[in-house]
């Protein structure tokens, strides 16, 4: 035996290899998340051409106030998803989740047509991280309205 590895060096080597492994694993996970786990695209990102055109993807944003229209068949719904900068018209045939409301968050999965109409196969409601009793929500709403009237005057 010509060379023997000192135990101290062996331990150091093991630590370096382990750290390298952690680094590679992290990089791979983060990379996978970046390319696959962007759960939805905002209308602005879609307008910038970041969303895939050849396959289904998800768009997310707020349901524009006053945009929800139900068709005569009672199942088909059309609405507009907006991030306040850009917006996308969506049509969907199916049952909507309970929390689906104008002015609230929504995520729709489907395909964007060449005419700019997004045909959804699934619609999910995205709720926010605020929890309060209805009275408190009502009070906040009133306060916001009062603020608006003051500004308007």
């Amino acid at each position, binding site marked *: 035996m010509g060379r023997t590895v000192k135990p101290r060096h062996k331990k150091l080597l093991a630590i370096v290899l*382990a750290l390298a*492994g*952690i680094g590679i*694993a*992290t990089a791979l*996970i*983060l990379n996978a*998340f*970046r390319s*696959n*786990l*962007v*759960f*939805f*695209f*905002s209308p602005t990102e879609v307008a910038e051409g970041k969303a895939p055109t050849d396959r289904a993807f998800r768009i*997310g944003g707020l349901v524009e106030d006053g945009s929800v229209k139900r068709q005569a068949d009672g199942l088909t719904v059309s609405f507009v998803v907006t991030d306040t900068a850009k917006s996308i018209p969506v049509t969907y045939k199916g049952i*909507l*989740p*309970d*929390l*689906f*409301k104008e002015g*609230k968050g929504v*995520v729709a999965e489907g395909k964007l047509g060449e005419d700019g109409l997004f045909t959804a196969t*699934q*619609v*999910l*409601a*995205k*709720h*926010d*991280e*605020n*929890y*309060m*009793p*209805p*009275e*408190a*929500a*009502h009070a906040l709403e009133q306060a916001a309205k009062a603020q608006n009237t003051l500004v308007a005057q």
Partner: protein
Amino acid sequence: MNLYAYASPATFYHLAGRLIPWFAWGAGLLTVWGLYVGFFVAPTDFQQSEAYRIIFIHVPAAWMSMFIYLVMAFWGAIGLAFNTRLSFMMARALAPTGAMFTFVALWTGAWWGKPMWGAWWVWDARLTSELILLFLYVGIIALWAAIDDIKRGDRAGSLLTLIGAINVPIIYFSVKWWNTLHQGATIKPSGTSMDAIMLQGMLVMAFAAWFYTIAVALVRVRRIILERERHTEWVKALLAKEI
């Protein structure tokens, strides 16, 4: 008092035995208090109405799933660095409870997701990284079970725990770093966007989960101590006394 004395399994065995009833009773009382506040005192939510109440189980379970993992990684690191036997035993004693809380978080999340979002499961970053956490727990437990040599098993399992610890900040910040269907954090350094009585119920349940975890981990670590130290005089004397 010499705190290092408690790093000795024999001393710790007796200390744990005295602590268990306190934590077990504490867990029971806090659970009753927390569930009462959560289900009878806390008001209905303005947009999710009654369905939000699953938060009183879901959030403490999810917090514990991440926190227990970090504690396991801590004990694993101490064990690897100082070769202390008790640290590895603590890591092994915590793992099943961590896996259980991860499962509860995923399960109650599905129950919450179906009525609120409209889907049991989606592959968003928060849900996926929490699922990876469950796989990590199961993987670590399986690795320990697969290696017969206790010392080698301890080291391998703790190394895997340390490597997997990178997943915990990913879970926590996933809702911030990526677009997720899962909503953002309610409790933030900048303030809490939750009604005070709802928050009280959630925090009491979180403390209950802590007490429960400590109690069952101590019960488990006592078993592990007895098993590993069965050839020592003090365990033989103890067993002889009990028989």
